[in-house]
């Protein structure tokens, strides 16, 4: 039975008790991402599901505060009613990790810094977290940041907490920057260019003045996809300008209108085109290295089953046949040569305990990372072993 605190004080009590008994805690919202990262050495689960509810929403100020266990779909619906959105477009892990769709909590989204295709223009979850409240691994209630857009008062701990997988603190409340929704969107598809040329077209478009908000290439359908968002008149003219700008690449042109376009990017966001049996990796590198990475991986004989490029080639999702090391050696050798990092997103728990799920770091960086963990959680009470076997 998970511990289910009702408020922040309860969370603090639970963490204090865990410290006293040296019983490592794992933090959950609805559990949709519990298989991300290394398998933890948990003895107890702290569920933040009861810590739910939006506590502040001021559309004119573009700001929303919610308790960590608030379902994302509730926040999305609330924003939608005001024509606003979380512009970082958090991905839904259900297609890759199983479980119900639309079952994430805002705390989980922040914990893994989940972002979608609009990341190239709008930023990641970390860019939208203005402030937060949490209970650290010391059992102390701490707040950081604020609720205004511009704030350089003290260290920007929001950046540290976003993407920390709950290893520093149990987030209890998050304050987010929200943004207006675009009036409409369209997607320009260029088909039949092949992988290398398709990706080159995306990079060219990313340096164009047409404000393309998402750029993906799906090898399954041989489609380079470019999303345009804004007022109707602007989208239409930019789409035509962009098509002319990329005419030199050739290929068949197709336009996805608003609803089709939204459905297309939801599939890309959730990496649906690569869903299926096998191990899954997420690789982040310079956009111009995306294709080279996949070519080298093929050259190394890795059994690549499916892949998709997002972020103009800077994010590669891969599905491979299962293997003892989940192909970590081959993938990491190539990433190390190019620059970037690779994360094992899905494999069984035994593999995730054996293989480094997160990219290994040079020793000076690794020891600083450990010291930062210790600054928040000196006894490694929270998510012990989630990031590294040692902590």
């Amino acid at each position, binding site marked *: 039975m998970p511990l289910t605190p009702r408020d922040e004080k*309860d969370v603090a*009590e*639970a963490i*204090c*008790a865990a*410290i006293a008994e*040296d019983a490592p805690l794992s933090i959950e919202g609805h559990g949709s991402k519990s298989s991300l990262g290394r398998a933890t050495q948990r003895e107890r689960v702290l569920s933040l599901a009861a810590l739910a509810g939006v506590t502040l929403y*001021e559309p*004119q*100020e*573009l700001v929303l505060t919610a308790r960590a266990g608030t379902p994302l779909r509730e926040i999305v619906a609330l924003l939608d009613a005001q024509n606003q959105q979380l512009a970082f477009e958090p991905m839904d892990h259900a297609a890759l990790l199983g479980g119900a769709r639309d079952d994430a909590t805002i705390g989980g989204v922040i914990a893994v*810094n989940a972002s979608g295709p609009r990341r*190239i223009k709008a*930023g990641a979850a970390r*860019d939208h977290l203005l402030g937060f409240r949490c209970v*650290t691994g*010391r*059992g*102390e209630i*701490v707040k950081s940041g*604020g609720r*205004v*857009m*511009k704030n*350089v*008062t*003290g*260290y920007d*701990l*929001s*950046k*540290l907490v976003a*993407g*920390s997988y709950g290893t520093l603190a149990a987030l209890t409340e998050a304050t987010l920057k929200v943004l*207006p929704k675009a*009036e409409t969107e369209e997607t320009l598809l260029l088909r039949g260019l092949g992988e290398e040329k398709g990706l080159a077209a995306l*990079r060219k478009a990313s*340096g*164009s003045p047409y*404000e393309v908000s998402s750029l993906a290439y799906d090898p399954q359908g041989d489609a380079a996809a470019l999303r345009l968002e804004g*007022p109707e*008149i602007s989208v239409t*003219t*930019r789409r035509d300008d962009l098509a002319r700008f990329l005419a030199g690449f050739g290929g068949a042109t197709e336009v996805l209108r608003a609803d089709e376009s939204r459905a297309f990017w939801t599939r890309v966001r959730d990496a649906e085109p690569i869903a299926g049996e096998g191990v899954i990796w997420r690789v*982040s*590198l*310079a956009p111009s290295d995306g294709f080279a990475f996949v070519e080298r991986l093929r050259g190394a004989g890795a059994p690549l089953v499916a892949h998709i490029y997002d*972020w103009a080639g*800077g994010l590669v999702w891969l599905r491979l046949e299962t293997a003892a090391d989940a192909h970590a050696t081959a993938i990491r050798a190539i990433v190390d040569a190019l*620059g*970037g990092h690779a994360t094992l997103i899905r494999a069984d728990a035994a593999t995730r305990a054996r293989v480094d799920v*997160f990219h290994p770091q040079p020793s*000076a960086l690794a020891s*600083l*990372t450990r*010291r930062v*963990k210790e*600054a*928040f959680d000196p006894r490694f009470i929270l998510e012990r072993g989630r*990031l590294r076997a040692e902590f």
Partner: protein
Amino acid sequence: MSLVMPLPEQAIMARREELLARLRAILPAANVIADETARRAYECDALVMYRALPLVVVLPETVAQVSAIMALAQEMNVKVVPRGAGTSLSGGALPLEDGILLGMSKFNRILEVDFENRCARVQPGVQNLVISKAVEYAGFYYAPDPSSQIACTIGGNVGENAGGVHCLKYGLTTNNILGLEMVLMGGEILRLGGKHLDSELYDLMGLMTGSEGLLGVVTEVTVRLLQKPVSARGLLLAFPTVEAGARCVGAIIARGIIPGGLEMMDAATIGAVENFQPCGYPLDAGAIVIVELDGTPAEVDHLVAVVEQIARAEGATETRVSQSEAERLRFWAGRKNAFPAVSCIGPDYLCMDGTIPRGRLPEVLTRMDALAKFHGLRVANVFHAGDGNLHPLILYDASKEGEIERAEKLGADILRLCVEVGGVLTGEHGVGVEKRDLMGEMFDETDLAQQQRVKCAFDPQHRLNPGKVFPTLHRCAELGMMHVQGGKLPFPELPRF
């Protein structure tokens, strides 16, 4: 002057000759500035009311030299203050009498421009505007544009998480950098991020940004480049009152429009600006709002019409739309000259930098007025209206007995007011030494202790830029103490929920 800095450590001062000799073994003799007259050039940053003569100034040219200097400082227990161009308005680069001032001005090269990946690798001493100038020919620019962009450096921008008029739409420094190379206090060289978008594990680059030189010395920055919008047009909107102007700003944003720039000035500032260098602002206005819309011409024309309509509905007494690039720049000229203009209506001014929730603006202005009257001083206002970042300029006369102190007290009262209504002590200038003693207004002891523990992870001996940001220095050992120890639990009956 109310500021208290840690007393210089005599033991360190006594070893100055040894320190100089060892620094000269690392650096060419000309790069170790020991002479008092030459050191005077570094005794303050742009917050000129606080000054201190650094023990020695060093100007390294390579990362290896920076690393060696840091390792030496750690070994000899000497403090280090990093400095870019010294444009900090909060005293972030104020030297220490027992410390090394580490000037990064010789790190002034653009190392690589990579248009394909829309980024550039630059050394920290490169000026903000130089980056945009270097990529302008290809239609690119670097978005964050602090007012001091002609002088301030990218390394300093990282230290302060600098913003500017573009940041409502394009974000602050933290949203526009991809990679950092930095040197820790012990001399270790780290690379964070790169040309890829997301950091992995802890986002130490995000933490470094805005850390005011307390965590490490930045030796290289990879910045994101953006394509310049094809067109931009400005609107100059006049309102009878600041309240009406503020309502208009709220209505623009509520309509789903995020302008490239959205600024406001009050009557005192408008008068000062027109007196300084006339640019045609209506003198009878209670407030002026300047809106800049950028994008494709069709989009900009569409948005201009919408914003004009909103402004009229909110009671604008005048709406002007720029018909040429020259006119757009003329709209901005007054705003850009606001600070020098204000210095002509009072001998001295103190520029404050608080951020508030935008909707509280009318209330804050009224109460700020009352505070100014109470302290017997005047305030002129310039706002980054879009994001609620206020720059009240407190006018005073330093030659008059007690006016500096009154100006400081008024400034502190204004910042307390900002925090009280849900805002923060500093929106873009940093805490530095200026707002250090006000940190308790925003954070409690536990919050501050946690921030200082982060400092301990980087610099356990507190040798890097001490005396800034945090009101009291705690030793890392005492910060490490647990409030709850095994066996002495405040909650023995757990679990109970």
